[in-house]
């Protein structure tokens, strides 16, 4: 296993993990979701949502053509409107990375690859780091791995921590996103602990979900992670990004997330460098809402491209 200058004992144990009260956390998230986003704010929020989006396809049936189509959409989401920005990244399986690199060449769309025995993370750390290194070698800019929930829930936090350290080493220059799979952690306390553990182990981003189980991202879960990120930044001066993924399908959901991030972490986090939304069908709803702002009427699903 690769060594790191960071040790579990020095980091996780020195960072205070604050308990979370479920009822009040959910009440706060619900209250932020009542923020009313109108006119100029709505347009700005929709554009920001696109700029922060990781357009995703993670299917066993993915093909090079499918990925090429996705990359085209990522670069120019609305072919009829050049004012619409491109998305942050495409998110795909390692096998598809070189196709995506080719298709996004010359654009500022990044290529993100899941790796490390996604979505369970349950193979040897050697196999997982090799998977990561391979995706990086194929040209991935960003690597999305999963937390070893098996070790974490069994109480072996040290192992979960050291595996992230090893994965970070395998990433080299690529950015590392660590998926906590919040729907499997069982409580907000565990989400907060896992957030701190991943950040201390060197994650550039912490991410909610794989999208492969029904319990995925939610506003209170992201709020819980954002509070951990905020305290971690204050204690260590290291700013870690957040990626919400799974179940985010409507423009309204997307701006609720922007509100939660903005009001918890501040405007510094409202950028693709610090916040991402992983989604597949969200983009078209955002485009429909943007068209509606421009034209005053709602067009319909046949006026955006299905990719």
């Amino acid at each position: 296993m690769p060594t790191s200058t960071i040790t579990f004992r020095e980091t996780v144990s020195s960072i205070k993990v604050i308990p979370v009260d479920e009822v009040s956390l959910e009440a706060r998230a619900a209250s932020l979701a009542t923020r009313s986003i109108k006119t100029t704010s709505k347009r700005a929020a929709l554009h920001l949502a696109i700029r922060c989006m990781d357009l995703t396809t993670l299917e066993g049936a993915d093909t090079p053509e499918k990925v090429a189509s996705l990359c085209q959409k990522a670069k120019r989401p609305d072919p009829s409107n050049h004012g619409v920005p491109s998305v942050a990244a495409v998110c795909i399986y390692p096998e598809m990375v070189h196709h995506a690199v080719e298709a996004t060449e010359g654009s500022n769309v990044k290529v993100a690859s899941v790796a490390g025995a996604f979505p369970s993370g349950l193979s040897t750390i050697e196999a997982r780091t090799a998977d990561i290194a391979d995706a990086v070698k194929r040209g991935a800019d960003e690597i999305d791995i999963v937390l070893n929930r098996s070790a974490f829930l069994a109480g072996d936090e040290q192992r979960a921590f050291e595996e992230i350290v090893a994965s970070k080493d395998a990433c080299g220059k690529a950015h590392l996103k660590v998926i906590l799979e919040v729907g499997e952690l069982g409580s907000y306390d565990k989400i907060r602990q896992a957030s701190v553990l991943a950040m201390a182990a060197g994650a550039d981003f912490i991410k909610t979900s794989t999208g492969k189980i029904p319990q995925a991202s939610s506003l209170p879960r992201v709020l819980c992670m954002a509070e951990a990120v905020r305290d971690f930044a204050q204690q260590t001066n290291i700013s870690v990004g957040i990626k919400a993924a799974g179940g985010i399908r409507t423009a309204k959901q997307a701006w609720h997330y922007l509100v939660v991030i903005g009001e918890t972490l501040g405007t510094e986090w409202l950028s693709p460098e610090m916040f991402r939304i992983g989604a597949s069908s969200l983009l078209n709803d955002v485009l429909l809402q943007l068209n509606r702002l421009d034209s005053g009427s709602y067009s319909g699903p046949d006026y955006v491209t299905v990719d």
Partner: protein
Amino acid sequence: MGNSNFKDGSSLEDFGIEYAPAIESTSLVNIKDKYGLFIDGNFVDSSSGKSFKTLDPSTEKPLSVVTEASSDDVDRAVRSAGVSYEKYWKKMPGADRARYLFRIARHLQERAREFAVLETLDGGKPIKESRDVDLPLAAAHFFYHAGWADKLEYAFPQRKLEPHGVIGQIIPWNFPLLMAAWKLAPALACGNTVVLKPAETTPLTALLLAEVIRDVDLPPGVVNIVTGAGETGSAIVEHPEVDKLAFTGSTEVGKLIHRSAVKRNLPLTLELGGKAPHIIFEDAALDQAIEGVINGIFFNQGHVCCAGSRLLVQESIADYFIDRLQKRIELLRVGNPLDKNTDIGAINSLAQLERIDQLVKAGIDEGAEVFKPSCSLPENGYWYPPTVLTGVQQSHRVAREEIFGPVLVVQTFRTPEEALEKANNTPYGLSAGIWTEKGSLIHWMAERLRAGVIWANTFNKFDPTSPFGGYKESGFGREGGMQGLTAYLKNSGGHS
């Protein structure tokens, strides 16, 4: 990517945490030029011809003219309530009384938006609070008490229950419609008739409620609503044919009413001021505790008798907690109460604004350090920014007197014993809040805190099923729950 600009003036970088105005429409609300007194089922003029203006405190613009009830008018209202009690209400089966209460509740729900906008216009509270708190709770109080109307004998078995007769009720300006609901619903459910006086700065929603009461065909005189200030109130208190008094408001006025009622051995319930301790232990869920503290003191501009106005924070986390709290306060949006994103609205009246200002100045003179956020306040109207006073000692006026505004005083403690001692060392005892993840500590504190309502890991949560009321100078009697019914029934065995 850069800053592309759009025709509406927005840019890609615009979405910070600044939101474009989202103003609730006032088109549903039809404010009349002048309102009469609601006596015997009709809107009538005053015998004296006197009237007064009610303002929008966020703009200082007059909204309407309201009739001032003279002692003759109060006499008319009390007599109407007396006749109606004998003629209709006393004889009516509980199930039939319930039907009227259910109808009022449903009308409140159907016209919720209209009521909420009017409440915000007349009182200055943010629309999100009148929409999400005042209106749903007001309707819930009528629904809940409608359920009791035909079950009173099961609530208090083996007792010869009887209504008091005519109830005089005087309510404050902080939750105008909700307090009317708290007072009217149990009184009517128990078979009493009522003369109710809303506060002089916020009469409009009570008068709209009078329209609802007329629309549901409640027998004339069962509810009478008289508007006016202190003189009108004292005419109700002194009236010889009033059988019971219920008052919510300041401790100062409560004491005067108590004196008058005691002389005549008149049943009385009082819900008065508070200076609630909000206690944060070092092991608490601190992010949620911050939200609890914010909600505890800045909800409704701090115009809340049970507001968590004294923050007691354990010394080991005090610096962290106060820093977090100040950063959170920077995010509060103060301004137009009709904006759906407004967190803190206008102070209810000039008199209240002056009182808040005077007390904060006294606090600073006594050595407290003041924190106010950088938010700007509108030019017109009555405004006070959310304020935190630190370095406050137990002997300071701001630690002892009720400010009734968006002002939090902060003290620290080292042990649970010390927290308890400081928390209880006040003439008031309406509410208290405890934040800790340790269940046994919650129970230990709750057993020893002398306050009528104790919230653990939450604050300012209300429900019609849960009794509310105070210890010591915060008053006596309970409102809500089965306990609240005893205030409106003879021989129930509870306080009435």
